[in-house]
């Protein structure tokens, strides 16, 4: 009994890490129909940035989150405005190609600047945990889940009630009506990418706190975000949370029942089933 409770907790907390990584991915996809193949590498870059901030400014990673967020927000705005916007209207594949190229360039620049060595963000609390009812709640993972919930709420409030948020939502329904409403689509897109880059970076900090990473670590993160986004439903504020929890719990439970070697069979098999049966995600509308 205790085993299963703890496994459940493990799954839920892993869901937090997975979900926070998918927030940005889901937003980009939902609003711009953009699949960002460089997503994971953005997160790894954020993890490296956090290490630098910790080393040179002595700023605690969790306190550095706003700083990292702002840096990525600005960078994301520029990348979208000057790079992705140039091709996003031409063809769906072209944006895929572009982000693939960006992924290549970013990952290899990181090797040049940070070497291929594995790093991890190390703080006194990084490997500690809280104990509750005899169950272990690792601090970083618990905080990540908390962050995910708070960010989901904030994102929802932002999209629902703020002017720029409404502009983003209007654009996600289609660019033609948005243009008729007088919105400057390139700026709305840039804003969306900026926001999601900031969110991706936030996820990157938690990834860096919970895993060892190298410049090549981005790929699996992108795939993970893909899966979570589909499970939760594309472009919904709550999707990443729901998708993350589902995947986290299923992987945890499945890995205990069938053995960890079958985790990928479970993950991707489940993804296939979900896609075929409920292509809009568990939260999305049916059909």
């Amino acid at each position, binding site marked *: 009994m205790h085993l299963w409770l*703890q496994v459940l907790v493990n799954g839920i907390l*892993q869901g937090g*890490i997975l979900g926070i990584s998918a927030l940005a991915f889901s937003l980009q996809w939902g609003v711009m129909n953009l699949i960002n193949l460089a997503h994971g590498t953005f997160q790894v870059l954020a993890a490296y940035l956090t290490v630098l901030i910790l080393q040179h400014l002595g700023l605690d990673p969790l306190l550095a989150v706003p700083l990292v967020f702002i840096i990525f927000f600005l960078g994301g705005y520029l990348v979208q405005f000057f790079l992705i916007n140039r091709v996003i209207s031409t063809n769906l594949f072209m944006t895929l190609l572009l982000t693939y190229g960006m992924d290549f360039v970013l990952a290899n620049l990181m090797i040049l600047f940070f070497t*291929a060595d*594995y790093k991890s963000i190390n703080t006194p609390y990084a*490997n500690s945990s809280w104990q509750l009812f005899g169950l272990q709640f690792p601090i970083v993972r618990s905080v990540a889940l908390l962050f995910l919930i708070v960010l989901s709420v904030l994102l929802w409030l932002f999209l629902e009630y703020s002017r720029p948020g409404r502009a983003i939502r209007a654009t996600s329904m289609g660019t033609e009506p948005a243009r008729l409403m007088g919105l400057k689509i390139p700026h709305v897109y840039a804003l969306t990418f900026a926001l999601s880059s900031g969110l991706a970076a936030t996820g990157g900090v938690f990834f860096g706190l919970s895993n*060892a990473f190298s410049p*090549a670590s981005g790929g699996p993160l992108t795939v993970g975000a893909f899966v979570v986004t589909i499970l939760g439903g594309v472009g919904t504020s709550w999707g990443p949370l729901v998708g993350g929890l589902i995947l986290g719990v299923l992987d*945890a439970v499945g890995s205990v029942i069938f053995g960890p070697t079958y985790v990928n069979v479970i993950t991707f098999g489940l993804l296939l089933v979900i896609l075929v049966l409920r292509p809009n995600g568990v939260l999305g509308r049916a059909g």
Partner: protein
Amino acid sequence: MLKPRKLAKALGASAVALTLILSGCGTATTSNNTSSTAGTITIGAPVAATGSLANEGKLVHDGYTLWENVVNKQGGLLVDGKRYKVNINFQDDQSVATNSASLTEKMYTQDNIRLFLSPYASGNIFSATTVAEKHKVPMISGGGGAKSIFTRDYKYVFSAYPYSGDYLGSVLDLLKTQGVKTLAFLHADDVFSKEADQGGEDYAKSHGFDVVYSAQYPSNASDLTSQLTQIAQKAPDALIGTGHFQEAVLLVKEAKQMNVNFKSIAFTVGPTMPSFPQTLGKDAEGILGASLWTPDLPYKDDIFGTSKEYADLYKQTFGVNPDYHSAMASAAAELMGLAVQKAGSPDPQKVRDALAGLGTVHLFDGDFTIEANGSISGLKLPVVQIQDGKAVTVWPGSFSQNFKDFPLPAWNKR
């Protein structure tokens, strides 16, 4: 639908580009001797500088390079009375096995290279060695030792690495002396990890240990908390992890997070690398690593001197302490040098025969014997333990005096 003019232009451009590449490569390789030496012996090495193996690839790269530097500083390799400069031609296989093969082919045909050192990682070695075997030129593995590399009846493939399945023997011997009885094994799903794990589990069972848990996880796993929870229920004395660096770090982090305690923890890959204690800080303390070489070992040879001197030189050259990946790579390069000297010429067939006939050699990393299938035997494998942020040799023999922190303190008592 086709646009002939565009197509023609593109083809023309590609033809020009190809010519450029080929001529470029041509000039790069005809690097004739400039100094007083009799010539240059060029050795090819398709080692990853980018991609997922870039980290270990660099260690191998530096190991080969150190040998190249030292030999050239000593005036070159003395072969049949004449001194030859050595030159290692590195090509980045981008961690992709197919590239390891095609780059080996490239170096063979384009650059006329006839002697080879291997890439890092078993998969890449498999691919690269098939090319060497096809062309009947020797390739020495300085990047991995999966047993299945040597069960293919190849005649031109040699190694400085022991079998992957032998890695854990010393660790288990050490644990045995401490009265460890029950073990949990976790391993990744790649060739090397599976062989190492299988070898370890077999050794454990035949030496009176009780394997209470064993599972395989996919490479690059990012969450193993539930496996640790499961393992905690069986309460084994020790955890043996066989996988990659990031998974070793992950296991330590998560074992602490989950407050799963062991009397001892050992990994095949991880603790020997300097970044392991750097990454984990004091949580790395007391963790054991199955190593193939440490600077403390009492061996020496003519090129590098003692193990200690090798380590100092390495640190001086690259700014970091060497781990066994670099040392094994250096040993592989050294083996190539020995064979060329014994053959009296860099002729690939003669070098191959020389390698096959080297018998037992005494290098800075230990004494070992070249077997008929190209693998080696007899290397006594050390075990390291992280103590005060450094990897300290705690096995074999009298090094066991250095062993401490047994049982490991509970995570929350650190």
